[in-house]
């Protein structure tokens, strides 16, 4: 599983790095540090990551299986 945060939509709500801190992390302004690049999801983090994808108020995160 990989996830990508759309940098044009992320506004720094922080739901992703609060719910799945092993996958997402904040930058100095509160946005997701990694934007517009696929982020690999470590094994065992799939469920929290899926919750983060759903929880994003901007719908900025998409998950891909590969």
């Amino acid at each position, binding site marked *: 599983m990989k996830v990508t945060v759309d940098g044009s*939509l992320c*506004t*720094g*709500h*922080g739901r992703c*790095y*609060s719910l799945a801190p092993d996958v997402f992390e*904040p*930058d*100095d*302004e*509160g946005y997701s540090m990694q934007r517009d690049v696929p982020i690999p999801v470590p094994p065992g983090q799939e469920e929290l990551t899926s*919750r983060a994808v*759903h*929880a*994003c*108020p*901007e*719908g900025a995160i998409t998950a891909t299986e590969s």
Partner: protein
Amino acid sequence: MTEARVTSRDMHTDFDIEDVSLAENFEEVLDDLVAHCPVAHSTVGKGYHVINKHADVRKAGQDWRTFSSADGWLLNPPDQSIPILPEDLDPPYHDTWRRVLNPFFAPGNVAKVEELAHDCARRLLDGFADKGECEFVADFAAHLPGLVLFNSIVPVPEADLPQLFQDIDTYSFGPLDDRVPAFVRVYGYLDAFLKRRSEEDPRGDVIDAIVAGVDKDGEPSPWEDKVHTLLDVVFGGLATTTHAMSGAIYHFATHPEIRRDLIANPDLVANAVEETVRLYPPVVAPARTVRNDVEIGGVQLKAGDRVALNYAAASRDPAACADPAEFDIRRTDIVQSAFGVGVHRCLGAHLARLELRVTIEEFLARIPDFELKPGSAPTYESAQLRTMKNLHLVWTPST
């Protein structure tokens, strides 16, 4: 008409965000709008539309070019209203302000406030925990946000705090006739405070960042924009957070099973914070101006139309969140619009979450078992912002 009408007014075609029936039947009105009226219409003032569905609120909130904030967040502003910035701005000027403000309210900086917030909360609880009763809004929730903010991220000299607190309190919760004079005093204070700080050595705090200002079309931002930015930073997080704190404690007073679950499972407090802001939203619906003709929710809007983004309704849309009326601290599908959607995402969201978490942790640790004072019920002041005006609680003090 097949659906039961929950108010005397037809909120689909004759909506009024200031109507007392909305204040008193908040959840019922919102749920009816979400279920049956994607876009409501109001004839109040110059008239406006209200966008109610989660997907439509998200779409409009993210499209600042079509849904502009430049005419202000109030649906029907008074003649000489003072803007708050960057709330009442569009990109790019909006974004240049946010870029300098964001770091002070980002999770890393907000985390430094944790200990202070716990200390402030404990001190407030010290004031009434042994009495077996409190009026939670006046005794706790109205104070904590200011105590934290003005002793940390927005440092105001301690000697100035009592008067500033009193004026802010009057402006936010006082008799209507006293509010404008109180606002004028706060404005004057913040203007003079900013001026004073501009003459002192920089300290690297958010006040310095506001004094330094940003670029506006190749020119330095004017002084009044700096004062209006400080206004936003100060007022954005006070009465709003007060309401969410009150909402949480009200909910736990009336749902003992939830507070027991939280006491047994403190890891769920973060979820409880999200459910609190989802179901007790302080910001109901900020305004936008339509810049280009656009269809949304099946309704054709024209350039110049005013709309409200109903964040409060969007958070109760079953299309986004199953059984939305249920305050469920174990749900795994929380998605809420309480902090806004799009570029105007609440600057203080991370600080608000911390203050709410600390409130829940400290209150339940000190007063694990409490209920509404028999015969009492909270009252609300509700328009584009919503505030619980009082919350009377009773408990058996521990000896």
